[in-house]
C-alpha cells in the first residue's frame, strides 16, 4: 500500500463529501420535474449547508453535552463508513481498514448517537423519532448484512474492494443470488436513508416523521452537520448499490486517466439511480409505520434467499 494509494483514498473520501449534496439536489430536481414544477437549482443543498454553517447554533436548556457532541460523531462515523466504500477505484487501502461489517457497524454507531441526540432534550417528538428509527433499523440491519454476506460468500471476502474485483472478473455469470441480494438491498437502502415509502425527508408533518423528528431541536452548524451526514448516507447507499452490483467502469488502479473515467462512469450511474429513486418516490405513497416491518421482512427474506441460493446452488 503505497503513499499514492492512500492519497487517492483521501481524494475519494473528499469526493464523497463534495458530491453528497449534489445527489440530494439531483433527486429533488428530478422529483420536481416529475411533479410539473421547475424545482430549486441543483446547487440548492450546497447553499442550504452554507447558510446553516453561518447561522448561530442554539441549544435547549435541557440539552446535555452529548447533544453537542452528537452531530460531530454522527458526521464523522458516516463519513468514515462512506470513505471505506470503493467510489471511483478498487484496491485502495481504506477498504482493508474497514470491511463491510465494519461499515455496517460505523453506520450503526452514527445512528446510535443520532437517536441518543433525539432523546436528549426530553421532548415527545425526539423520543418518538428515536424509537421509530431504532425499530426500523433493527429490522433493516440484518437484511442489509444478509444481502452483503451473499456477495461476501461468493467473493470469499468481506472486503468490499475484493468483492467488486470479483464481480468485475466474473461478470459473465448471471447469479440468482445476486438478484435476490440486489432486491433486498434496494429495500433496505430505502428504509435506511429515510426515503418514501418508509420516511419522508421532505416533510415535518408530525405523525409521519422519523429522521426529522430526531433532529428537530438542532440549529445552525449542528443542523448542517446532521443534514450533510444524511446526504452522505444517501450517497453511500447509492454507491454501494451501483458499485457492488454494477461495477463496470471502475478504475482498478490509481492511474489518473482511469480515475477520471471511473468518476465519470460512477456519476452517470448515480444520476440514473437518483432518477429512478425520484420516479419511485413520485409514484409511491408513504406507508403506515406498522406496514414497514412487512417490507423489511420481505427484504430480509429476499436477502436470506439469496444467501441460501448461493450456498445450495452455486458453491
Amino acid at each position: 500500500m503505497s503513499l499514492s494509494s492512500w492519497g487517492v483514498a483521501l481524494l475519494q473520501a473528499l469526493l464523497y463529501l463534495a458530491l453528497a449534496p449534489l445527489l440530494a439536489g439531483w433527486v429533488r430536481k428530478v422529483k420536481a420535474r416529475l411533479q410539473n414544477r421547475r424545482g430549486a437549482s441543483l446547487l440548492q443543498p450546497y447553499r442550504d449547508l452554507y447558510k446553516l454553517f453561518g447561522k448561530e447554533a442554539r441549544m435547549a436548556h435541557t440539552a446535555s453535552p452529548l447533544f453537542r457532541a452528537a452531530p460531530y460523531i454522527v458526521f464523522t462515523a458516516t463519513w468514515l463508513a462512506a470513505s471505506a466504500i470503493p467510489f471511483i477505484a478498487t484496491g485502495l487501502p481504506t477498504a482493508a481498514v474497514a470491511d463491510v461489517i465494519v461499515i455496517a457497524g460505523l453506520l450503526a454507531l452514527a445512528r446510535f448517537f443520532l437517536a441518543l441526540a433525539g432523546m436528549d432534550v426530553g421532548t415527545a417528538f425526539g423520543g418518538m423519532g428515536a424509537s421509530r428509527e431504532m425499530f426500523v433499523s433493527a429490522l433493516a440491519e440484518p437484511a442489509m448484512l444478509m444481502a452483503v454476506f451473499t456477495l461476501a460468500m461468493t467473493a470469499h471476502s468481506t472486503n468490499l474492494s475484493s468483492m467488486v474485483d470479483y464481480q468485475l472478473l466474473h461478470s459473465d455469470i448471471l447469479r440468482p443470488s445476486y438478484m435476490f441480494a440486489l432486491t433486498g438491498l434496494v429495500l433496505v437502502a430505502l428504509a435506511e436513508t429515510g426515503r418514501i415509502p418508509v420516511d419522508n425527508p421532505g416533510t415535518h408533518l408530525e405523525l409521519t416523521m422519523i429522521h426529522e423528528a430526531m433532529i428537530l431541536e438542532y440549529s445552525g452548524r449542528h443542523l448542517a452537520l446532521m443534514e450533510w451526514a444524511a446526504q452522505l448516507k444517501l450517497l453511500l447507499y447509492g454507491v454501494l448499490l451501483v458499485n457492488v452490483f454494477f461495477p463496470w467502469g471502475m478504475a482498478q488502479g490509481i492511474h489518473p486517466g482511469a480515475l477520471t473515467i471511473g468518476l465519470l462512469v460512477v456519476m452517470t450511474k448515480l444520476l440514473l439511480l437518483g432518477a429512478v429513486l425520484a420516479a419511485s418516490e413520485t409514484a409511491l405513497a408513504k406507508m403506515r409505520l406498522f406496514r414497514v416491518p412487512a417490507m423489511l421482512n420481505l427484504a430480509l427474506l429476499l436477502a436470506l434467499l439469496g444467501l441460501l441460493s448461493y450456498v445450495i446452488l452455486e458453491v
Partner: protein
Amino acid sequence: MVELLPLWSAGLAVGLALTSALVALFSGRVVSLLRILAMPLFALAGLAALVAGLSAMVQGDILTAQLPLGLPWLPWRVRLDALAGFFLCVIGVVSFAVGIYGGGYVRGLEHGRDSLPVLGGFSGLFLTGMLLVVLADDAFMFMVSWELMSLSSYFLVALHHDQAANRRAAFLYLLMAHVGGLSILLGYGVLAAFGDGFAFEAMRSSELTFGWASVAFVLAFIGFGMKAGLVPLHVWLPEAHPVAPSHISALMSGVMLKVAVYGFIRFVFDLIGEIHWQWGVAVLAVGSISALMGVLYALMQQDIKRLLAYSSVENIGIIFIGLGLALLFLGTGHKMLAVVAFVAALYHTINHALFKGLLFLGAGAILHSAHERNLEQMGGLLRRMPWTGAFFLIGCISIAALPPFNGFVSEWLTFQAALQSWQLDSGVLRSLIPITAAVLALTGALAAACFLKVYGVAFLGRARSRHVRRARQVPPSMRAGQGVLALLCLLLGVLPTFVIALLNVVPQQILGQGLIQATSQGWLWLTPISPETASYGAPLVTITLALMLIAGLWLFGRGIRRVKRCDAWDSGFAPPNPRMQYTATAFAQPIRRVFGLLFHIDEGVKLQPDGRRRYQLNVNDRLWELLYLPVARGVERAARQVVRLQSGNVRTYLSWTLATLLVLLWIMA
C-alpha cells in the same frame, strides 16, 4: 521459581479471597471493617488472579500441583493451563473492579438493615468457589467448588430476604442450581465410568462410543447451560441476578456465567475426546434462540437490573453461537475455522464480563444515589452523575456491538467464522449457518435498540421523579471501579491484535492449533482468516474517528465556545414537561407489537374501585406457562400421591424403610 509464579499467584488469590471472607465476619462489630479491609482484600484477590491468569497465558505451560485436601484415595489436584489462565483473568479483572467499587458501595449499606458479615463473608466464599472451579483438575474438587460457588451466591441473592419476591427468586435459583449441578455430576459420572477415575487426566484418555459421548455431552450441556442461562433454562437468571446487591450482580452476570462457560469448554472441548458435528448443531440452535429471546425480553423490561440480566442471556447465547460453530467446524474437520470461532467465543466471554460488569456497577451507582431501579422514574442522570453517565455510555456502546469498542470485535470475529460456512461439504449445514448469522445480526441490532432505550431514558432527557432529580455523584471509589472496566472496554476494542496474540495459546493447547495468521500483518491489522478474506484495522478506525472529531470540533466548535440556550422547540407546541417524554415502555412498543407472538402480553384498562381507569401492561416470559408450570404442577401432583404413604404410624414407616433396604440390597447383589 518464576515458572511457578502463576500457581503461587493463584494460590495467593484464593487465600486473599478467604481472608476477605474471614475479615468480613467481624464487620458485625466494627461496621467499617468491610469497607476498609474486606473489600480491598477482595480487590487484591482479583488482582492476584489476574496476575496468575496473565502469567499462565504468557508462559503457555501446564502447571499442576497436589493439595493436602480431599479424600484419601482422591487428593485434590489443581492444574493451571492456558484455558484456566484465561478464565482466571476474566474472574480477576471483574473482581478487582468490584473490590474497588465495593468499598464505596457497602458504605451505603452500613446503616441499613442488611447483615454485613453475611454480605462480605459470602462474597469472599463466592470468589473462592469460582477460582477453585477453574483450577480444579478432578471432578471431585470441581463439584465441591462448584457447589461452594452456587451456595454462597444463593445466600447473596437471599440477602434481602425480608421481601417475599426475593425469597422466591432465591429459592428458584437454588432449585435450578441443584438440578444443573446434578446434571453435571451425572455427566462426569459417564466420563469417569469409561475413564476409570475422577481425575481429569483419566477422563481425557477415556474412549467413548458416540452414544455414550452424546449422553455425557447432553448432560453437560443441560448442567452448564442451566448455570449459564441458556433458553429455555434461563428463567432463574432474570429473577436472581437483580435481587443481589449490585456489585454482586456484576459478579454473577459478569463472572459466574463465564465459569459455566468454562465448565462447558473444559468438558466438551477438553475431556470428552472426539467431537461430533451434531453437537455443534444443537449448541448453535440453542445459542441462537437464547441470543434472540434474551434481547427481546431485555427490550421489554423496565427494571434496569432485570433488563441487564436478560441481556446476559443474550450474550451467553452469542458466546454459545461461537462455541457451536467451533464444534461444528471441528466435527467436520475444519480445524482452522474452528479456531476462529473458538477465539471469537473466548473474546466475547471476556468482553461480556467487562461490559456487563461495568453496566451492573453503573446500575448500582444509580441505585446508590437515586434509590431507583425503575427506568420509568429516571431521566436526566447524565447531568447529575457525569462520570457514571460517561462510563455507562461506554458500556452501552460496547454491548451494542458498535465500533470501535470491544463488543464489536467479537461479533465481527463470529461473523467471519460464520461466513466461512461455504467450505462445508453438507448443503444442510451450509444453509444452517447463514440463518444463524441472520439471527446474530438481528440480535445485534435489537441490542442497540435496547441499550439506546436504557441510556436515553435513564441518562438523557429530564428526571421523571423527585428523588431522581436529587441524585448526586457517587464516591470516587465507585467511579474508579467503573472507570477500570470502561477503559478496558476501549482497549480491547482498539487493540484486538494484542488480545488475540495473548489468547492464541488457549486454542493451541485445547485444539492443537493457534490463530497465528490473525496477527501476521502487524498490530494494526486483524486478519483472522487471511488478509484477502477480511481485515479490520481497529486502531486506524479509532485514530481516524478521533482525529476527524477533533478536527471537526476545532473547525466548527472552536473549542468550548458557549452556545446560547433557549426553550426546546418541539414543533412549536406548549413547552414540554417531563411527563411528555417517551417512556421506556413507549420506546419498545413498536418492537413489542412486531414480535408480539413471542411474549405473553397482558394489556388492558382496568376500572379501579374509586371509578378511575388504569392502563396496565404486563409482558411475561411465555416459557413459564409452556414449560415450567406444567413441571411444577406435575411435581405437586406426584407429591400428593406420596402423601398417601404418610399414615403417621411409626411401624408403617419402619416397614417401608426395611422394604427399601431389601430392594437396594437385591439390586446391589
